[in-house]
């Protein structure tokens, strides 16, 4: 910390905002436990071996990987601060490269998983009759394998060739395209829900305007959280390429750690938005965490009913 003051004074106008390691550690732990829970629940429950839950499980896996690598990195930096770790060592550098590759992979994987979930929901709504023909388990597994392969390769390439601007451009373009696609898919689905609601409202005695409001709220939350958590990081990437020496951009880039916190918090909020809305998943959690399928559990439950 003392060495920062050795910098020229005109660079202290926009100091780098530092977030304590504890914040990252706590976020990482919470996100890790949540997403691991989702993965284990989907794997254990045979009812959840459907394409939709496979995509949700893939999203949770990517979040798990990202929180694992982020936590690992934070721990390494903590050790390095304390002096236990030689940050210049070769092995540490290699480990650092692996961490960065995993982080890149999980970021791209999260975006692709969001897209896959949106496409799956879209097919559910608009191709309902042929859903189980279009979205077979095999096709979903193939799509997931493709996503994982793409993300693995992309993560490795991004870390290996960090100085090529085309990598950053690729990242940003991927983000923008996914954003637009997700927005389009969900708004289209929402429009259908709206016309459903209108028709149902034609039923006398069934006017429930607050339900449509909740639909709008849900969609806004889903999309809004995605944009709020991911856009600052991508704007940072964009500004890195576009205006390297602009002082305004410099001030924006000084808040990089806050943008990282937002990214990590998205991994925390994700299960609540996607996974925990499923009654079946929630029941599986309850069974896993609070009560196993033992006869004693049922007796206890019977006592309270």
């Amino acid at each position, binding site marked *: 910390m003392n060495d920062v003051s050795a910098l020229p004074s005109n660079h202290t106008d926009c100091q780098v905002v530092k977030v304590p390691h504890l914040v990252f550690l706590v976020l990482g732990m919470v996100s890790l436990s949540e997403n691991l829970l989702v993965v284990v629940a989907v794997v254990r429950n045979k009812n959840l*071996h459907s394409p939709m839950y496979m995509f949700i499980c893939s999203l949770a896996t990517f979040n798990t990987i990202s929180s694992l690598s982020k936590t690992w990195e934070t721990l390494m930096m903590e050790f390095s601060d304390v002096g236990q770790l030689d940050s210049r060592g070769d092995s540490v550098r290699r480990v650092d490269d692996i961490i960065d590759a995993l982080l890149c992979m999980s970021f791209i994987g999260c975006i692709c998983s969001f897209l896959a979930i949106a496409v799956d929901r879209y097919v559910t709504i608009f191709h309902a009759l042929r859903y189980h023909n279009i979205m077979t388990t095999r096709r979903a597994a193939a799509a997931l394998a493709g996503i994982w392969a793409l993300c693995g390769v992309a993560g490795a390439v991004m870390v290996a060739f960090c100085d090529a601007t085309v990598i950053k451009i690729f990242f940003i373009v991927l983000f923008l395209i996914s954003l637009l696609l997700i927005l389009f898919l969900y708004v289209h*689905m929402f429009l259908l*829900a709206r016309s459903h609601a209108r028709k*149902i409202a034609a039923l006398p005695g069934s006017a429930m305007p607050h339900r449509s409001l909740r639909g709008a*709220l849900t969609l806004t939350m889903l999309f809004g959280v995605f944009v709020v958590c991911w856009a600052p990081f991508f704007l940072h990437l964009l500004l890195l390429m576009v205006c*390297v020496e602009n002082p305004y951009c410099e001030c*924006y880039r000084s808040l990089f750690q806050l943008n990282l916190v937002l990214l990590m918090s998205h991994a925390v909020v994700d299960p609540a938005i996607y996974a925990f*809305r499923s009654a079946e998943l929630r029941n599986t959690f309850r069974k896993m965490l609070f009560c196993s399928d033992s006869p004693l559990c049922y007796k206890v439950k019977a006592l309270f009913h």
Partner: protein
Amino acid sequence: MMSMERRTLVPNPERERERERTQCKRTVRLRSWVFLEMSVFNHSNLSGGNAPDPDYKWTYEYYDDDEPVSFEGLKAHRYSIVIGFWVGLAVFVIFMFFVLTLLTKTGAPHPEGAEPCKKRVRLTSCVEDLRPPADPDNRPCLHRPLLDSSLSRSLFHCYVNEEQAQEGSRPRAGTPRGGLVQGPGRGRSGSPEEGGMEVGVTRALQGAAMLGGNRTDHREAMSLSHFNIPNVVNSEHCSTLGADDLLLGEPPIIMEGECHWPHSAHHMMD
């Protein structure tokens, strides 16, 4: 992304290559913040790139000495990009919410239901030509049974044929009472005109989405539940259908009876 910085080994200081590498380091900067202290500490020994250690030289520079970012003469506030970005983002999200809310409120419902009843029912391709019989007494469409028995029977057979054409032979044991779902191509533009059909649509959507695997028993149950829908439409405690039922979250896994769905399923729009 906050990892240790990337170091490069160069034998001789070269300003131009340093500049290029500095570009990468500015990107790499996003990969390292905490090690700033260490890099500055170490870099102080390597002023301007003249490394006393002949083996390697640190080219990482947090702030490039050649091109200091000058904060002199800033016209606007220095965090203007940050403020502008967040304000724009908040405005965008709120605007989106209001647009969606407005979309739900616009379009008055048609309580008489005469007009939608007369329009073509957009259903599966095989029922496109079948129209619901004229409703002379102007009751709301949703009050009468979902489909007339003759129409529903023909629709049922049509549906069976279409399903068989799509999936191969699979006997359907459902009762011939309506319950048609949105066709694959027809439903794209919006919704079927008939409100009662929409109830069936939402139910079927839930069932369809739920069927992820190759569970034939669920498929049978789905086809069965398709054709039980009119019972659901007319029953009181199952009338809590609305935008919630647009399945975007998770479908019920097991369909046991018609009225489980509004209660057990938690939908995305909820």
